[in-house]
């Protein structure tokens, strides 16, 4: 095998393909990236850890076709560090040499025949606009659990109904729901998948810069896989198994009280006031006509308070939140204002975005947060 490729092209492709390689793989070959150069001037890079696979293609001057398996991490680091010149990759015996300008690296190869076959990309089910996917995934994964003892909740539930996709995630204390439109491959397509939040946000981050991201899915028969493809890059991941709890019912049917506050101002004030809220303590928000007063800390501890303008509809209400969960919800929104809808001081509060102070809220994204009980 022998090919020449542009340094930036190589570095970007290797970095992307090797991004999810395990640091301590169960078998050494799984730490590798497979390079397959063909006579048509294409080099295909692939990685696989039996759960997540990644494949990318780059154009290169292929002098001699061939396949090698080398350490993905090392090749990624080397290619990023090379000077901006053409790179020659040549297999010599059992070693691969990487030459670029005056730099020369020799890498050991691993047996290609021991490398597992990558799963085939499942059938395409539709396409989503890249930026929208990135935003939506970031908005819901913030609420997914990071606790591996509850594997189900480390996933994001994806519900496809025709031209609408709903993403849902919860760690039991907050729940995020985002609806977005997409273009299904077949009209009226319906399916449900549970994707690991980490995998999903990784795919969204690395492919979201493309205009369109193709989604592929196979559920029910055989292996449950989801795949994403954009700009010559393919990634697949096993789906999480299990029945996701019925969480939609947790959203309140009616909210007699709501308040609209500048999102930016509330975020900044919350950050400041939260400085005195120690671990496990809450930040309290007292809403009354025209304002909200934030405060944290009590008794002999350090205390802080700050008042902000707020448009309140309904009775005065005071709620207390875990400061980080509050900030996560505010950060997931991108609108000028945030609307917080209440039923009772101890019942979940719904956060939605709102463009103008006296407009309607945008219910395509909803963040539901349970308040912390406090003695009034």
């Amino acid at each position, binding site marked *: 095998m022998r090919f020449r490729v542009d340094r930036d092209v190589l570095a970007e492709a290797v970095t992307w393909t090797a991004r999810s390689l395990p640091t301590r793989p169960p078998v050494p070959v799984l730490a590798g990236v497979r390079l397959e150069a063909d006579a048509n001037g294409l080099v295909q890079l692939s990685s696989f850890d039996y759960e997540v696979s990644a494949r990318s293609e780059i154009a290169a001057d292929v002098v001699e076709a061939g396949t090698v398996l080398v350490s993905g991490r090392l090749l990624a680091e080397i290619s990023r560090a090379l000077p901006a010149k053409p790179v020659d990759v040549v297999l010599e015996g059992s070693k691969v040499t990487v030459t670029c300008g005056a730099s020369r690296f020799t890498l050991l190869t691993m047996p290609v025949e021991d490398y597992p076959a990558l799963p085939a990309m499942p059938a395409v089910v539709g396409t989503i606009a890249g930026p929208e996917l990135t935003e939506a995934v970031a908005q819901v994964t913030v609420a997914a659990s990071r606790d591996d003892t509850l594997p189900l909740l480390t996933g994001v539930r994806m519900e496809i109904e025709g031209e609408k996709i709903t993403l849902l995630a919860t760690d039991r204390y907050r729940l995020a729901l985002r609806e977005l439109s997409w273009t299904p491959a077949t009209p009226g397509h319906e399916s449900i998948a549970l994707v690991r939040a980490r995998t999903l946000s990784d795919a969204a981050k690395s492919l979201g810069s493309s205009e369109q991201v193709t989604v592929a899915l196979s559920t029910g028969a055989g292996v449950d896989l989801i795949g994403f493809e954009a700009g010559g890059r393919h990634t697949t991941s096993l789906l999480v198994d299990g029945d996701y709890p019925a969480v939609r019912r947790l959203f309140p049917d009616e909210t007699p009280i709501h308040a609209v506050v500048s999102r930016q101002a509330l975020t900044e004030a919350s950050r400041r006031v939260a400085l005195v809220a120690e671990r496990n303590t809450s930040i309290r928000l007292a809403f009354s006509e025209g304002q909200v007063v934030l405060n944290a800390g009590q008794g002999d501890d350090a205390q802080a308070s700050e008042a902000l303008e707020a448009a309140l509809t309904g009775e005065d209400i005071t709620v207390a939140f875990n400061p980080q969960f509050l900030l996560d919800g505010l950060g997931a929104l991108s609108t000028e204002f945030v609307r917080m809808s209440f039923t009772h001081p101890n019942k*979940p509060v719904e956060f939605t975005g709102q463009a103008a102070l006296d407009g309607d809220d945008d219910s395509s994204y909803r963040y539901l947060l349970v308040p912390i009980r406090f003695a009034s």
Partner: protein
Amino acid sequence: MSRGPLRRGPRPDWGSDESHCGILHVDMDAFFASVELVRRPHLRGRPVIVGGESRGVVLAATYEARAFGVHSAMPMAQARRMCPQAIVLPPDQAAYRAASVAVMAILGQVTALVEKVSVDEAFLDVSGARRRLGSPTVIAEQIRERVRRELDLPCSVGIASTKFVAKLASGMAKPDGVLLIPRAATVPFLHSLPVGSLWGVGERTEAALARWGITTVAQLADSEVATVQRAVGKVAGAHLHDLAWGRDPRPVTPVRQEKSIGAESTLPEDTADRSVLETHLVSLADRTATQLRERGLVARTVSLKVRSADFRTLTRSRTLGVPTDTAREVSLAARELLAGVDLGGQAVRLVGVRAEGLTASTTRPLTLEESVDDGHAPQRRAEQAMDEVRRRFGAGAVRAASVVDATSRTSTILEPPGDLS
């Protein structure tokens, strides 16, 4: 109960000046065994051991059994060899807890300043009760008399000017006695003891001090603080040196915050089978969580203890995202910890689960589900129902289906008496 050998000969008299001696340490004698004797009076005068039936350890032994060398925390097999005629009774934690509550209730009527140390011992500060009830020795006798009359249980009382000397004194007073260490006699008294009697000096510390030639409290007191610190560490060294001179400023603090709650069990036979171990974890987590709910506490950290057949013990702990008091979450965390333990091919002899980082359960955040359903998530609800069933029909009335067979033959100890640990 004391692990030390039975003291023989007359109790030394350290004087009778009771001024400045307001601290009492009340310690039940062979507590679990004594409780058993109350309902089995025909066993009085005979060697009786409470502990796990086939394996496990001695939890308590009557003085008749101790005369054969049996002491608490000793493996049961060894105890049986030393005293084959002993009557071995399985532990009945519910009965011991009930007796403990009754004892503590009597102490609570003497003064509000009661610090419960474990199920069978407590400190009392009676310096303010002199007018009302009499001198500390009079109060000590009143307590012993009431506990004996109302509960038919023996206890010993140590009286001193500080907590740790009072505790040492109660140990010396056993069985069924009272010992006063006047303040002026504190240092001579301490200096008559081996260093291992000091509070906090276990086998390891004892060995560390012995390497520096320190085997008695007198030698400890005469050593440079720096030397002691070099032997056992900075903080412990300074503390031990203070103790050796009778300096112990710790007051009797009535509400003692429990640091951890847990349960452990010696398996009926050593096993390396992880599914068997997991089954035990389920039942241990259940017991731990039941105790948490009983006391209105939630735990932030779950720790797992595994002792292998070669008696090596390792512990692993995991901090939860959110504090809990449900068996399900405790056992999930414990199982996760077990999965990370490399047994190195060794079989396991004992497993334990402990809940740490305890706070009042009112501080536990509700989940969305609990908040919407008014504080009743299905799992908590199920476990609370189990609590209710056990209250009415006894501890064995209900348990997880997966543990029914595996645990029926194990000895599970919940709250060993304080000085076992």
